[in-house]
């Protein structure tokens, strides 16, 4: 075979250069360790992963892959949001009719809408469970690596959970049905209950003093540009930080718990990847975290699992969306509040606490809208934000499920999670007309819809 030559006639070998291999798709199925390492560096989709991955941190039962699942759902949301962008009309006169068209007139429209809606619901759940997992395993704690800032990644994660909730909120407003209209009413009145600045905040959110076209276009632009853009940016930063922090906290715990022996450089290791030197350089130190028995090539071990999780999520959700149709309430009607008027499940605990937190001290009353809608959620978010700096548990407590040294804080955290879940269940199953309590098996009294 003739070797390619440059114009000056100098012979150049292509097959031996790093990252260049003659077979097509060689980076998907590398034949050697060298090709496996090159696959990460020279492949656009893979270059943000490390060449080698700590094997225990890929355990199914350590992370449950909830972060990857959330990312897969975000991908699905972007993909299914694409066609919806072409079909939905953000106008108070036509929004409801355009959703009706998507649901009943557009080919595969109801499936696309269902994929979008189910993915949104599951993403709220997946992101929340991801946060619970990270807290319970103390994975926001720094380990033995240099330059680790896991607490910052936790902060970004909290921000991403809030963005996910805001995206869901702005998303279910868009059909401009009864759910949407009264959710905007209640949501913006919660903002309005903040002392001094409240009414101004409400006016900014609504784009006026009444719920009308300026309101819909604001929430629409937030939903399709501002919030997804912010979430996408934070997602990329989140992933980059995982890399900078040396992978999951599990990797640190593995290195900490095992004997840390300096091993001799391994022959097959490609130090070119580290940017240190070409070939195998004897001066490079390796600790047990990079020892061959604990790490595996990212291609295919990491990429295979990512493929299983991402493709599995997409497959299950696509099927699921065939069978679960998306509801649409009656068109927005400023004249009639539905009875009961329930928020989506992930906000029902908030609806429950704004109901229960109006405080009366003598003749002085503080609206539950402010305490339950602003102060308590604000307090929860603040606690989540500062917790990595409060948590003084030892290093060995990171990357491990339910360590003894974190028992107290894990219990307190689970108690708060439990309260949120109980309130959500009460709101879902036990609240009926006029927000009265009924048992799930109890029939609701018949109440005329109009006076």
């Amino acid at each position, binding site marked *: 075979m003739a070797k390619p030559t440059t114009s000056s006639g100098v012979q150049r070998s292509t097959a031996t250069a790093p990252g260049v291999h003659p077979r097509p798709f060689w980076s998907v199925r590398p034949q050697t360790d060298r090709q496996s390492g090159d696959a990460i560096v020279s492949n656009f989709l893979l270059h943000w992963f490390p060449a080698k991955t700590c094997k225990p941190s890929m355990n199914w039962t350590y992370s449950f892959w909830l972060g990857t699942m959330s990312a897969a759902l975000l991908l699905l949301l972007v993909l299914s949001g694409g066609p919806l962008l072409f079909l939905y009309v953000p106008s108070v006169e036509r929004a409801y009719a355009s959703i009706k068209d998507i649901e009943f007139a557009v080919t595969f429209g109801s499936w696309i809408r269902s994929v979008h809606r189910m993915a949104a619901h599951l993403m709220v759940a997946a992101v929340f469970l991801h946060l619970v997992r990270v807290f319970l395993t103390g994975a926001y704690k720094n380990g033995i690596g240099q330059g680790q800032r896991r607490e910052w990644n936790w902060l970004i994660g909290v921000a991403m959970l809030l963005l996910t909730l805001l995206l869901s909120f702005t998303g279910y407003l868009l059909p401009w049905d009864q759910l949407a209209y*009264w959710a905007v*009413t*209640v949501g913006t*009145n*919660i903002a309005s*209950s903040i002392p001094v600045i409240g009414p101004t905040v409400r*006016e*900014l959110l609504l*784009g*006026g*003093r*009444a719920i*009308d076209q*300026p309101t819909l276009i604001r929430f629409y632009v937030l939903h399709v540009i501002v919030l997804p853009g912010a979430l996408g940016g934070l997602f990329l930063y989140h992933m980059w930080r995982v890399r900078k922090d040396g992978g999951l906290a599990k990797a640190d715990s593995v290195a900490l718990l095992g004997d840390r022996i300096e091993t001799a450089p391994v022959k097959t290791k490609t130090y070119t990847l580290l940017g240190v030197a070409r070939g195998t350089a004897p001066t490079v130190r390796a600790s047990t975290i990079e020892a061959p028995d604990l790490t595996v090539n990212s291609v295919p071990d990491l990429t295979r699992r990512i493929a299983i999780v991402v493709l599995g999520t997409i497959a299950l959700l696509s099927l699921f969306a065939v069978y679960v149709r998306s509801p649409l309430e009656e068109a927005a009607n400023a*004249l*009639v*509040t*539905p*009875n*009961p*008027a329930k928020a989506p499940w992930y906000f029902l605990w908030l*609806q429950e606490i*704004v*109901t*229960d*937190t*109006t405080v009366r001290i003598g003749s002085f*009353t*503080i*609206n*539950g*809208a402010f305490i*339950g*809608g602003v102060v308590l959620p604000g307090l929860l978010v603040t606690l989540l934000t500062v917790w990595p700096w409060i948590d003084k548990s030892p290093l060995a407590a990171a990357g491990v499920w339910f360590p003894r040294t974190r028992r107290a804080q894990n219990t307190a955290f689970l108690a708060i999670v439990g309260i949120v879940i109980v309130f959500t269940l009460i709101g879902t199953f036990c609240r009926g*007309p*006029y*927000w*009265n309590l009924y048992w799930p098996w109890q029939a609701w009294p018949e109440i005329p819809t109009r*006076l």
Partner: protein
Amino acid sequence: MTEHAVDRRDFIFRVGTGAGIAAIVYQASASLRSLVPNVSYDAPTTVKLGPVAEFPDGLKFLPDERLFVFREGNTFHAISAVCTHLGCTARAEALPSPEAKEIGGKSLRLTHRFQCPCHGSKYNGDGSNVSGPAPKPLAWYHLSLASDDGQLVVDLAHEVEHDFRLTV
């Protein structure tokens, strides 16, 4: 040459950076300011509700104004249906038998009570909050007769005390 704390290169760098930051801050705030509404096309607050004869004795609910208008013989009063908790529309429920209540020296016949579907606030027939998260009573609004055609007129920007009555 003498030593300067800030040489020319430093000085120009600082002026340039400062000007850049000032420009970005100004342009960003100008862009954001455009989102603060200068005009709000609100519905008028003074609304004609219809001829007096159209109001039966007892309660009439006007969904557009979110208003309960009560008539007791020749006297009228109007109570807002907007829940003081988070702004949903409260619904009226007729009492089995009317009750009498003394408010500000004037007696009031209570024929209904009000409940909010969103968070379960309950109000008495005079709008006072009884239970649930509502922090204050429902608003009472000023009623008058139009000078031109004698229709009932409500002023939704004018809250009144609970002893307000319009006598026709």
